[in-house]
Protein backbone atom coordinates (compact mmCIF):
# COMPACT_ATOMS: atom_id res chain seq x y z
CA UNK A 1 0.00 0.00 0.00
CA UNK A 2 1.75 3.17 -1.19
CA UNK A 3 1.88 6.17 1.11
CA UNK A 4 2.11 8.65 -1.78
CA UNK A 5 0.08 8.13 -4.88
CA UNK A 6 0.15 10.52 -7.80
CA UNK A 7 -2.39 9.67 -10.49
CA UNK A 8 -2.59 11.08 -14.01
CA UNK A 9 -1.16 14.44 -13.07
CA UNK A 10 -1.16 17.29 -15.57
CA UNK A 11 0.25 20.72 -15.02
CA UNK A 12 0.43 23.65 -17.37
CA UNK A 13 2.32 26.92 -16.98
CA UNK A 14 0.39 29.01 -19.44
CA UNK A 15 0.64 27.02 -22.67
CA UNK A 16 3.63 25.05 -21.49
CA UNK A 17 2.70 21.48 -20.60
CA UNK A 18 5.15 20.84 -17.72
CA UNK A 19 3.74 17.60 -16.35
CA UNK A 20 2.24 15.15 -18.78
CA UNK A 21 -0.05 12.59 -17.25
CA UNK A 22 2.33 11.60 -14.50
CA UNK A 23 1.56 8.66 -12.25
CA UNK A 24 3.82 7.66 -9.41
CA UNK A 25 3.64 5.68 -6.23
CA UNK A 26 5.97 5.83 -3.27
CA UNK A 27 5.91 3.07 -0.71
CA UNK A 28 6.29 3.66 3.00
CA UNK A 29 9.97 3.95 4.06
CA UNK A 30 11.00 4.24 0.43
CA UNK A 31 13.54 6.81 -0.72
CA UNK A 32 12.86 8.04 -4.22
CA UNK A 33 15.29 10.30 -6.01
CA UNK A 34 14.08 12.23 -9.04
CA UNK A 35 16.72 13.33 -11.52
CA UNK A 36 16.57 15.11 -14.83
CA UNK A 37 17.54 18.19 -16.76
CA UNK A 38 16.40 21.56 -15.50
CA UNK A 39 12.96 22.26 -16.90
CA UNK A 40 12.10 18.60 -16.99
CA UNK A 41 9.29 19.14 -14.46
CA UNK A 42 10.86 17.33 -11.50
CA UNK A 43 10.55 20.24 -9.07
CA UNK A 44 7.03 20.96 -10.25
CA UNK A 45 6.06 17.35 -9.64
CA UNK A 46 7.41 17.56 -6.10
CA UNK A 47 5.63 20.87 -5.47
CA UNK A 48 2.37 19.43 -6.75
CA UNK A 49 2.49 16.70 -4.13
CA UNK A 50 1.83 19.26 -1.36
CA UNK A 51 -0.15 21.59 -3.65
CA UNK A 52 2.35 24.45 -3.60
CA UNK A 53 1.57 24.16 -7.29
CA UNK A 54 -2.05 23.44 -8.03
CA UNK A 55 -2.14 20.63 -10.59
CA UNK A 56 -4.55 21.09 -13.47
CA UNK A 57 -5.63 17.52 -13.66
CA UNK A 58 -5.27 14.30 -11.73
CA UNK A 59 -5.19 13.29 -8.13
CA UNK A 60 -2.74 13.34 -5.23
CA UNK A 61 -3.01 10.98 -2.32
CA UNK A 62 -0.82 11.07 0.76
CA UNK A 63 -1.37 8.71 3.68
CA UNK A 64 -5.01 8.15 2.92
CA UNK A 65 -5.90 11.75 2.14
CA UNK A 66 -6.70 12.11 -1.52
CA UNK A 67 -7.15 15.48 -3.15
CA UNK A 68 -8.30 15.83 -6.74
CA UNK A 69 -7.03 18.70 -8.86
CA UNK A 70 -9.57 21.47 -9.16
CA UNK A 71 -9.83 25.01 -10.40
CA UNK A 72 -12.44 25.95 -7.85
CA UNK A 73 -10.86 26.59 -4.50
CA UNK A 74 -13.75 25.57 -2.31
CA UNK A 75 -13.53 25.52 1.45
CA UNK A 76 -13.54 21.74 1.28
CA UNK A 77 -10.64 21.68 -1.18
CA UNK A 78 -8.62 24.07 0.98
CA UNK A 79 -9.25 21.92 4.02
CA UNK A 80 -8.13 18.81 2.15
CA UNK A 81 -4.98 20.56 0.98
CA UNK A 82 -4.32 21.68 4.52
CA UNK A 83 -4.69 18.12 5.85
CA UNK A 84 -2.45 16.82 3.10
CA UNK A 85 0.24 19.39 3.90
CA UNK A 86 0.25 18.22 7.51
CA UNK A 87 1.32 14.80 6.22
CA UNK A 88 4.23 16.20 4.22
CA UNK A 89 7.30 18.14 5.18
CA UNK A 90 9.18 20.15 2.60
CA UNK A 91 12.76 21.34 2.33
CA UNK A 92 13.50 24.07 -0.19
CA UNK A 93 16.55 24.91 -2.26
CA UNK A 94 16.67 28.39 -0.70
CA UNK A 95 16.05 27.12 2.88
CA UNK A 96 13.30 29.73 3.44
CA UNK A 97 13.93 30.02 7.15
CA UNK A 98 11.94 32.82 8.76
CA UNK A 99 14.54 35.58 9.24
CA UNK A 100 12.63 37.36 12.02
CA UNK A 101 12.64 34.26 14.23
CA UNK A 102 15.61 32.53 15.80
CA UNK A 103 16.41 28.87 15.23
CA UNK A 104 14.18 27.33 17.88
CA UNK A 105 11.37 29.80 17.14
CA UNK A 106 11.58 28.80 13.49
CA UNK A 107 11.13 25.19 14.49
CA UNK A 108 8.29 25.60 16.98
CA UNK A 109 6.35 28.15 14.90
CA UNK A 110 4.24 25.62 13.04
CA UNK A 111 3.70 23.18 15.93
CA UNK A 112 2.46 26.09 18.05
CA UNK A 113 0.32 27.93 15.51
CA UNK A 114 -0.91 24.98 13.46
CA UNK A 115 -1.04 22.15 15.97
CA UNK A 116 -1.82 24.44 18.92
CA UNK A 117 0.94 22.81 20.91
CA UNK A 118 2.18 24.57 24.03
CA UNK A 119 5.47 26.37 23.61
CA UNK A 120 7.17 24.15 26.18
CA UNK A 121 6.07 20.96 24.51
CA UNK A 122 6.96 22.27 21.06
CA UNK A 123 10.38 23.39 22.27
CA UNK A 124 11.01 19.96 23.70
CA UNK A 125 10.18 18.31 20.40
CA UNK A 126 12.03 21.03 18.51
CA UNK A 127 15.20 20.50 20.52
CA UNK A 128 15.04 16.80 19.83
CA UNK A 129 15.12 17.44 16.10
CA UNK A 130 17.69 20.18 16.44
CA UNK A 131 19.95 17.69 18.22
CA UNK A 132 19.30 15.23 15.44
CA UNK A 133 20.66 17.67 12.86
CA UNK A 134 23.54 18.52 15.21
CA UNK A 135 22.67 22.15 15.87
CA UNK A 136 21.39 22.17 19.45
CA UNK A 137 24.01 24.79 20.32
CA UNK A 138 22.55 27.20 17.75
CA UNK A 139 19.05 27.26 19.23
CA UNK A 140 19.08 31.02 19.90
CA UNK A 141 20.90 32.16 16.77
CA UNK A 142 19.13 34.05 14.03
CA UNK A 143 19.24 32.51 10.55
CA UNK A 144 21.37 35.38 9.21
CA UNK A 145 24.23 34.17 11.40
CA UNK A 146 24.20 30.59 10.14
CA UNK A 147 26.07 29.10 7.22
CA UNK A 148 24.08 27.74 4.30
CA UNK A 149 24.56 24.18 5.46
CA UNK A 150 23.41 25.04 8.96
CA UNK A 151 20.38 26.86 7.58
CA UNK A 152 19.37 23.85 5.56
CA UNK A 153 19.79 21.54 8.55
CA UNK A 154 17.56 23.85 10.61
CA UNK A 155 15.05 23.82 7.76
CA UNK A 156 15.06 20.02 7.87
CA UNK A 157 14.53 20.06 11.64
CA UNK A 158 11.70 22.56 11.18
CA UNK A 159 9.94 20.29 8.71
CA UNK A 160 10.51 17.22 10.89
CA UNK A 161 9.07 18.95 13.95
CA UNK A 162 5.63 18.72 12.35
CA UNK A 163 6.16 14.96 12.32
CA UNK A 164 5.24 14.42 8.68
CA UNK A 165 4.81 11.01 7.11
CA UNK A 166 6.68 12.00 3.96
CA UNK A 167 9.56 14.40 3.41
CA UNK A 168 9.93 16.25 0.13
CA UNK A 169 13.35 17.68 -0.73
CA UNK A 170 13.49 20.18 -3.57
CA UNK A 171 17.15 20.45 -4.59
CA UNK A 172 18.24 20.82 -0.97
CA UNK A 173 21.93 21.25 -1.74
CA UNK A 174 21.83 23.28 -4.95
CA UNK A 175 22.25 26.65 -3.19
CA UNK A 176 25.12 25.46 -1.02
CA UNK A 177 28.84 25.95 -1.33
CA UNK A 178 30.46 22.61 -2.24
CA UNK A 179 32.12 22.17 1.16
CA UNK A 180 28.76 22.51 2.94
CA UNK A 181 26.85 19.95 0.90
CA UNK A 182 28.16 16.97 2.87
CA UNK A 183 26.67 17.97 6.21
CA UNK A 184 23.19 18.28 4.70
CA UNK A 185 23.46 15.01 2.79
CA UNK A 186 24.60 13.26 5.96
CA UNK A 187 21.47 14.39 7.78
CA UNK A 188 19.37 13.14 4.90
CA UNK A 189 21.20 9.79 4.87
CA UNK A 190 20.51 9.45 8.56
CA UNK A 191 16.83 10.16 7.99
CA UNK A 192 16.66 7.57 5.23
CA UNK A 193 18.31 5.03 7.50
CA UNK A 194 15.68 5.70 10.15
CA UNK A 195 12.99 4.80 7.67
CA UNK A 196 11.58 8.15 6.66
CA UNK A 197 9.71 8.13 3.38
CA UNK A 198 11.45 10.63 1.15
CA UNK A 199 11.07 12.10 -2.30
CA UNK A 200 14.18 13.99 -3.34
CA UNK A 201 14.94 16.14 -6.35
CA UNK A 202 18.70 16.50 -6.61
CA UNK A 203 21.72 16.69 -8.84
CA UNK A 204 23.89 14.76 -6.35
CA UNK A 205 24.29 11.56 -8.27
CA UNK A 206 26.60 9.80 -5.84
CA UNK A 207 24.13 10.54 -3.07
CA UNK A 208 21.32 9.15 -5.20
CA UNK A 209 23.32 6.03 -5.91
CA UNK A 210 24.06 5.50 -2.24
CA UNK A 211 20.73 6.33 -0.62
CA UNK A 212 17.95 5.88 -3.15
CA UNK A 213 15.78 2.83 -3.26
CA UNK A 214 14.53 3.99 -6.62
CA UNK A 215 15.75 6.56 -9.10
CA UNK A 216 13.35 8.29 -11.47
CA UNK A 217 14.55 10.02 -14.59
CA UNK A 218 12.27 12.74 -15.90
CA UNK A 219 12.39 14.59 -19.18
CA UNK A 220 9.95 17.04 -20.76
CA UNK A 221 7.27 16.39 -18.16
CA UNK A 222 7.33 12.64 -18.42
CA UNK A 223 8.85 9.86 -16.36
CA UNK A 224 11.20 8.29 -18.87
CA UNK A 225 12.69 5.57 -16.78
CA UNK A 226 12.81 4.39 -13.20
CA UNK A 227 14.40 1.62 -11.19
CA UNK A 228 17.07 0.71 -8.70
CA UNK A 229 20.02 3.07 -8.77
CA UNK A 230 22.49 0.39 -9.90
CA UNK A 231 20.34 -0.31 -12.89
CA UNK A 232 19.70 3.33 -13.83
CA UNK A 233 23.26 4.48 -13.35
CA UNK A 234 25.04 1.41 -14.72
CA UNK A 235 22.76 0.39 -17.53
CA UNK A 236 20.12 2.96 -18.45
CA UNK A 237 17.67 1.54 -20.94
CA UNK A 238 16.56 4.79 -22.55
CA UNK A 239 19.00 6.77 -24.72
CA UNK A 240 17.83 10.05 -23.13
CA UNK A 241 18.74 8.80 -19.67
CA UNK A 242 22.07 7.63 -20.96
CA UNK A 243 22.78 10.99 -22.57
CA UNK A 244 21.81 12.88 -19.40
CA UNK A 245 24.01 10.75 -17.18
CA UNK A 246 26.95 11.05 -19.56
CA UNK A 247 26.64 14.81 -19.61
CA UNK A 248 26.48 15.07 -15.86
CA UNK A 249 29.55 12.93 -15.31
Amino acid sequence: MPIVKVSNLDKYFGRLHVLKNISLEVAEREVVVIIGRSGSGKSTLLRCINFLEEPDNGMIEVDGISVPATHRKTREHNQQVHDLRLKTGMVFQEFNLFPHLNVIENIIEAPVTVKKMSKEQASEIGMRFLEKVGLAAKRSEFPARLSGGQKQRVAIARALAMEPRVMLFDEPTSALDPELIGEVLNVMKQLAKEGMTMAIVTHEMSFAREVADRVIYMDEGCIIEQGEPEKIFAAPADPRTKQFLERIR
Partner: protein
Amino acid sequence: MWKRLESRFHFFAMATVTTTPSASTPAPKSQAQLILERNRRARRNFTLSVVASWIAMLLLLLFLFSGLKLKSSAAGTQIAITKWVETTGNKQKQDETLFSLPVGIPSGEFAYSTITLDWGFVGKNFAFIRDGIWQTIGISALSIVTATVLALLAALGRLSTFPPVYALSTFYVSLIRGTPLFLQVIFFFLALPQLGIDLSGLWAGVIALGLNYGAYMSEIFRAGLLSVGKGQREAALALGMTQSQMMLRIVIPQALRFAVPPTGNEFIAMLKDSALVSATGFVHEILWRAGAAGKPVNRNLEALMIAAVFYWFMTISFSALQDRLEKYMARGDR
Protein backbone atom coordinates in the same frame (compact mmCIF):
# COMPACT_ATOMS: atom_id res chain seq x y z
CA MET B 1 29.41 58.09 25.34
CA TRP B 2 33.13 58.63 24.74
CA LYS B 3 33.25 55.52 22.63
CA ARG B 4 30.50 56.84 20.43
CA LEU B 5 32.10 60.23 20.07
CA GLU B 6 35.33 58.53 19.25
CA SER B 7 33.80 56.43 16.54
CA ARG B 8 31.87 59.33 15.10
CA PHE B 9 34.85 61.65 14.99
CA HIS B 10 37.40 58.98 14.43
CA PHE B 11 40.27 61.47 14.34
CA PHE B 12 40.43 61.21 18.12
CA ALA B 13 41.31 57.58 17.74
CA MET B 14 43.51 58.33 14.77
CA ALA B 15 45.78 60.64 16.73
CA THR B 16 46.84 57.86 19.06
CA VAL B 17 47.14 55.24 16.36
CA THR B 18 49.42 57.24 14.12
CA THR B 19 51.74 58.86 16.66
CA THR B 20 52.70 55.93 18.89
CA PRO B 21 54.25 53.55 16.38
CA SER B 22 56.17 56.26 14.52
CA ALA B 23 57.68 57.51 17.77
CA SER B 24 59.27 54.18 18.69
CA THR B 25 60.07 52.76 15.25
CA PRO B 26 60.99 55.13 12.46
CA ALA B 27 60.27 52.44 9.88
CA PRO B 28 58.86 53.96 6.69
CA LYS B 29 55.11 53.67 6.29
CA SER B 30 53.76 51.51 3.55
CA GLN B 31 52.00 53.13 0.65
CA ALA B 32 48.71 51.62 1.76
CA GLN B 33 49.16 53.18 5.18
CA LEU B 34 49.95 56.56 3.65
CA ILE B 35 46.90 56.48 1.41
CA LEU B 36 44.74 55.40 4.31
CA GLU B 37 46.02 58.29 6.41
CA ARG B 38 45.54 60.77 3.61
CA ASN B 39 41.94 59.65 3.13
CA ARG B 40 41.29 59.85 6.82
CA ARG B 41 42.76 63.32 6.97
CA ALA B 42 40.58 64.42 4.08
CA ARG B 43 37.49 63.01 5.78
CA ARG B 44 38.43 64.62 9.09
CA ASN B 45 39.01 67.98 7.43
CA PHE B 46 35.66 67.78 5.74
CA THR B 47 33.85 66.98 8.99
CA LEU B 48 35.66 69.75 10.83
CA SER B 49 34.90 72.27 8.13
CA VAL B 50 31.23 71.36 8.12
CA VAL B 51 30.99 71.68 11.90
CA ALA B 52 32.81 75.00 11.80
CA SER B 53 30.49 76.30 9.08
CA TRP B 54 27.44 75.26 11.05
CA ILE B 55 28.73 77.11 14.08
CA ALA B 56 29.49 80.16 11.94
CA MET B 57 25.96 80.15 10.53
CA LEU B 58 24.43 79.82 13.98
CA LEU B 59 26.59 82.69 15.24
CA LEU B 60 25.57 84.83 12.28
CA LEU B 61 21.92 84.10 13.05
CA LEU B 62 22.46 84.99 16.70
CA PHE B 63 24.17 88.18 15.66
CA LEU B 64 21.34 89.18 13.33
CA PHE B 65 18.89 88.90 16.21
CA SER B 66 21.22 90.29 18.85
CA GLY B 67 19.96 93.88 18.85
CA LEU B 68 23.50 95.17 18.41
CA LYS B 69 23.81 98.55 16.78
CA LEU B 70 26.71 100.39 15.20
CA LYS B 71 26.54 104.17 14.95
CA SER B 72 29.26 106.35 13.57
CA SER B 73 29.51 110.05 12.84
CA ALA B 74 32.14 112.78 13.08
CA ALA B 75 31.42 112.95 16.79
CA GLY B 76 32.43 109.40 17.42
CA THR B 77 31.54 105.72 17.06
CA GLN B 78 29.36 103.69 19.37
CA ILE B 79 28.42 100.10 19.61
CA ALA B 80 25.15 99.80 21.45
CA ILE B 81 22.63 97.12 22.26
CA THR B 82 18.97 97.85 21.78
CA LYS B 83 16.61 96.51 24.41
CA TRP B 84 12.91 96.58 25.05
CA VAL B 85 12.38 98.35 28.34
CA GLU B 86 9.09 98.53 30.18
CA THR B 87 8.35 101.95 31.62
CA THR B 88 4.99 102.68 33.25
CA GLY B 89 3.10 99.95 31.48
CA ASN B 90 4.25 100.43 27.87
CA LYS B 91 7.33 99.01 26.26
CA GLN B 92 9.89 101.05 24.45
CA LYS B 93 13.16 100.40 22.69
CA GLN B 94 16.17 101.80 24.44
CA ASP B 95 19.81 101.86 23.43
CA GLU B 96 22.47 100.97 25.91
CA THR B 97 25.98 101.91 24.83
CA LEU B 98 28.46 99.12 25.26
CA PHE B 99 31.51 100.66 23.72
CA SER B 100 32.41 104.04 22.29
CA LEU B 101 35.31 105.58 20.45
CA PRO B 102 35.93 109.32 20.06
CA VAL B 103 36.71 108.93 16.34
CA GLY B 104 34.25 108.18 13.59
CA ILE B 105 33.61 108.64 9.90
CA PRO B 106 34.46 112.25 8.97
CA SER B 107 31.26 113.27 7.20
CA GLY B 108 27.65 112.17 7.40
CA GLU B 109 26.28 109.46 9.58
CA PHE B 110 26.41 105.70 9.42
CA ALA B 111 24.16 103.39 11.36
CA TYR B 112 23.63 99.67 11.20
CA SER B 113 21.28 97.90 13.53
CA THR B 114 20.31 94.28 13.87
CA ILE B 115 16.90 92.94 14.84
CA THR B 116 15.84 93.52 18.43
CA LEU B 117 14.01 90.74 20.14
CA ASP B 118 11.89 91.28 23.20
CA TRP B 119 13.81 89.01 25.56
CA GLY B 120 11.43 89.87 28.38
CA PHE B 121 8.62 88.33 26.33
CA VAL B 122 10.79 85.35 25.45
CA GLY B 123 11.65 84.74 29.09
CA LYS B 124 8.03 85.01 30.19
CA ASN B 125 6.58 82.76 27.48
CA PHE B 126 9.36 80.26 26.87
CA ALA B 127 8.00 77.72 29.36
CA PHE B 128 4.43 78.19 28.14
CA ILE B 129 5.34 77.40 24.54
CA ARG B 130 7.75 74.64 25.60
CA ASP B 131 4.95 72.77 27.36
CA GLY B 132 3.25 72.44 23.99
CA ILE B 133 5.93 69.88 23.06
CA TRP B 134 3.98 67.19 24.85
CA GLN B 135 0.78 67.99 23.02
CA THR B 136 2.68 68.01 19.74
CA ILE B 137 4.35 64.68 20.46
CA GLY B 138 1.10 63.27 21.84
CA ILE B 139 -1.04 64.14 18.85
CA SER B 140 1.69 62.99 16.48
CA ALA B 141 2.02 59.68 18.31
CA LEU B 142 -1.73 59.05 18.31
CA SER B 143 -1.91 59.99 14.65
CA ILE B 144 1.02 57.83 13.60
CA VAL B 145 -0.54 54.81 15.34
CA THR B 146 -3.84 55.47 13.55
CA ALA B 147 -1.97 55.99 10.29
CA THR B 148 0.03 52.77 10.71
CA VAL B 149 -3.10 50.69 11.22
CA LEU B 150 -4.85 52.33 8.25
CA ALA B 151 -1.74 52.04 6.08
CA LEU B 152 -1.40 48.33 6.84
CA LEU B 153 -5.09 47.72 6.07
CA ALA B 154 -4.89 49.78 2.89
CA ALA B 155 -1.76 47.92 1.80
CA LEU B 156 -3.36 44.54 2.47
CA GLY B 157 -6.43 45.74 0.59
CA ARG B 158 -4.27 46.85 -2.29
CA LEU B 159 -2.79 43.35 -2.55
CA SER B 160 -6.19 41.70 -2.23
CA THR B 161 -7.64 39.79 -5.14
CA PHE B 162 -11.18 40.50 -3.92
CA PRO B 163 -12.38 43.43 -6.09
CA PRO B 164 -14.43 45.41 -3.50
CA VAL B 165 -11.56 45.35 -1.00
CA TYR B 166 -9.06 46.40 -3.65
CA ALA B 167 -11.43 49.16 -4.77
CA LEU B 168 -12.00 50.43 -1.23
CA SER B 169 -8.27 50.64 -0.63
CA THR B 170 -7.46 52.48 -3.87
CA PHE B 171 -10.50 54.75 -3.42
CA TYR B 172 -9.34 55.78 0.04
CA VAL B 173 -5.78 56.43 -1.05
CA SER B 174 -6.87 58.39 -4.12
CA LEU B 175 -9.37 60.55 -2.22
CA ILE B 176 -6.98 61.43 0.58
CA ARG B 177 -4.00 62.04 -1.65
CA GLY B 178 -6.13 64.17 -3.92
CA THR B 179 -7.14 66.71 -1.29
CA PRO B 180 -5.07 69.06 0.87
CA LEU B 181 -4.15 68.01 4.38
CA PHE B 182 -5.20 71.38 5.74
CA LEU B 183 -8.65 70.95 4.22
CA GLN B 184 -8.94 67.53 5.83
CA VAL B 185 -8.00 68.87 9.23
CA ILE B 186 -10.55 71.68 9.21
CA PHE B 187 -13.12 69.42 7.54
CA PHE B 188 -13.19 67.11 10.50
CA PHE B 189 -13.36 70.00 12.89
CA LEU B 190 -15.60 72.50 11.11
CA ALA B 191 -17.63 70.57 8.56
CA LEU B 192 -18.65 67.53 10.56
CA PRO B 193 -20.54 69.48 13.27
CA GLN B 194 -22.96 70.50 10.51
CA LEU B 195 -23.86 66.82 10.30
CA GLY B 196 -24.29 66.65 14.03
CA ILE B 197 -20.92 64.99 14.59
CA ASP B 198 -18.96 66.93 17.11
CA LEU B 199 -15.39 65.83 17.43
CA SER B 200 -13.08 67.40 19.95
CA GLY B 201 -10.17 69.28 18.43
CA LEU B 202 -7.83 66.50 19.43
CA TRP B 203 -9.80 63.71 17.78
CA ALA B 204 -10.54 65.76 14.70
CA GLY B 205 -6.80 66.30 14.39
CA VAL B 206 -5.86 62.70 15.05
CA ILE B 207 -8.41 61.37 12.57
CA ALA B 208 -7.42 63.85 9.88
CA LEU B 209 -3.67 63.34 10.30
CA GLY B 210 -4.11 59.59 10.70
CA LEU B 211 -6.24 59.26 7.57
CA ASN B 212 -3.89 61.45 5.58
CA TYR B 213 -0.66 59.80 6.62
CA GLY B 214 -2.29 56.37 6.40
CA ALA B 215 -2.93 56.94 2.72
CA TYR B 216 0.65 58.01 2.03
CA MET B 217 2.15 55.33 4.23
CA SER B 218 0.15 52.55 2.59
CA GLU B 219 2.80 52.57 -0.13
CA ILE B 220 5.48 51.90 2.49
CA PHE B 221 3.56 48.95 3.83
CA ARG B 222 2.76 47.65 0.38
CA ALA B 223 6.46 47.68 -0.41
CA GLY B 224 7.03 45.97 2.95
CA LEU B 225 4.56 43.22 2.19
CA LEU B 226 6.03 42.74 -1.28
CA SER B 227 9.53 42.58 0.17
CA VAL B 228 8.66 39.30 1.89
CA GLY B 229 9.70 36.71 -0.65
CA LYS B 230 7.53 34.05 -2.19
CA GLY B 231 9.70 31.43 -0.51
CA GLN B 232 8.59 32.64 2.92
CA ARG B 233 4.94 32.19 2.00
CA GLU B 234 5.59 28.76 0.51
CA ALA B 235 7.51 27.64 3.59
CA ALA B 236 4.65 28.74 5.82
CA LEU B 237 2.04 27.02 3.68
CA ALA B 238 4.13 23.85 3.38
CA LEU B 239 4.21 23.72 7.18
CA GLY B 240 0.43 23.63 7.17
CA MET B 241 -0.32 27.24 8.03
CA THR B 242 -3.52 28.78 6.76
CA GLN B 243 -3.46 31.97 4.68
CA SER B 244 -4.28 34.12 7.69
CA GLN B 245 -1.74 32.38 9.95
CA MET B 246 0.86 32.89 7.24
CA MET B 247 0.04 36.60 6.95
CA LEU B 248 -0.13 37.25 10.70
CA ARG B 249 2.84 35.19 11.82
CA ILE B 250 5.27 35.30 8.91
CA VAL B 251 4.53 38.00 6.33
CA ILE B 252 3.26 40.96 8.38
CA PRO B 253 5.99 40.80 11.07
CA GLN B 254 8.65 40.93 8.36
CA ALA B 255 6.81 43.66 6.47
CA LEU B 256 6.58 45.73 9.66
CA ARG B 257 10.29 45.37 10.27
CA PHE B 258 10.89 46.63 6.78
CA ALA B 259 8.46 49.50 7.39
CA VAL B 260 9.77 50.70 10.75
CA PRO B 261 12.53 53.04 9.51
CA PRO B 262 10.35 54.82 6.92
CA THR B 263 7.55 55.06 9.50
CA GLY B 264 10.02 56.85 11.76
CA ASN B 265 10.59 59.35 8.96
CA GLU B 266 6.85 59.83 8.64
CA PHE B 267 6.62 60.45 12.37
CA ILE B 268 9.19 63.23 12.08
CA ALA B 269 7.21 64.79 9.24
CA MET B 270 4.06 64.35 11.33
CA LEU B 271 5.61 66.32 14.21
CA LYS B 272 5.64 69.31 11.91
CA ASP B 273 2.31 68.72 10.16
CA SER B 274 0.63 68.43 13.56
CA ALA B 275 0.98 72.22 13.67
CA LEU B 276 -1.99 72.37 11.27
CA VAL B 277 -4.21 71.18 14.11
CA SER B 278 -3.56 74.51 15.84
CA ALA B 279 -6.10 75.90 13.38
CA THR B 280 -8.86 74.22 15.36
CA GLY B 281 -7.77 76.14 18.41
CA PHE B 282 -8.49 73.25 20.72
CA VAL B 283 -5.20 71.44 20.81
CA HIS B 284 -2.69 73.47 22.72
CA GLU B 285 0.39 72.32 20.89
CA ILE B 286 3.45 74.40 20.14
CA LEU B 287 2.16 76.51 17.28
CA TRP B 288 -1.15 77.27 18.99
CA ARG B 289 0.72 78.38 22.08
CA ALA B 290 3.02 80.56 20.01
CA GLY B 291 -0.02 82.28 18.55
CA ALA B 292 -1.76 82.58 21.89
CA ALA B 293 1.30 84.14 23.48
CA GLY B 294 2.41 86.33 20.58
CA LYS B 295 -0.74 87.74 18.98
CA PRO B 296 -2.26 89.71 21.91
CA VAL B 297 0.94 91.64 22.56
CA ASN B 298 2.14 91.80 18.97
CA ARG B 299 5.21 89.66 19.62
CA ASN B 300 4.68 87.15 16.82
CA LEU B 301 8.29 87.30 15.71
CA GLU B 302 9.56 86.17 19.09
CA ALA B 303 6.76 83.65 19.63
CA LEU B 304 7.18 82.02 16.22
CA MET B 305 10.93 81.90 16.63
CA ILE B 306 10.57 80.06 19.92
CA ALA B 307 8.16 77.64 18.26
CA ALA B 308 10.53 77.15 15.34
CA VAL B 309 13.41 76.40 17.68
CA PHE B 310 11.34 73.75 19.46
CA TYR B 311 10.24 72.10 16.23
CA TRP B 312 13.80 72.11 15.01
CA PHE B 313 15.09 70.71 18.25
CA MET B 314 12.47 67.95 18.21
CA THR B 315 13.16 66.93 14.62
CA ILE B 316 16.90 66.86 15.26
CA SER B 317 16.41 64.67 18.33
CA PHE B 318 14.01 62.28 16.64
CA SER B 319 16.18 62.09 13.53
CA ALA B 320 19.10 61.06 15.71
CA LEU B 321 16.93 58.41 17.38
CA GLN B 322 15.72 57.30 13.98
CA ASP B 323 19.30 56.99 12.78
CA ARG B 324 20.16 54.68 15.63
CA LEU B 325 16.98 52.69 15.16
CA GLU B 326 17.79 52.22 11.50
CA LYS B 327 21.31 51.02 12.28
CA TYR B 328 19.96 48.70 14.94
CA MET B 329 17.37 47.23 12.58
CA ALA B 330 19.91 46.78 9.82
CA ARG B 331 22.13 44.75 12.12
CA GLY B 332 19.99 41.58 12.26
CA ASP B 333 19.79 40.60 8.65
CA ARG B 334 22.28 40.71 5.89
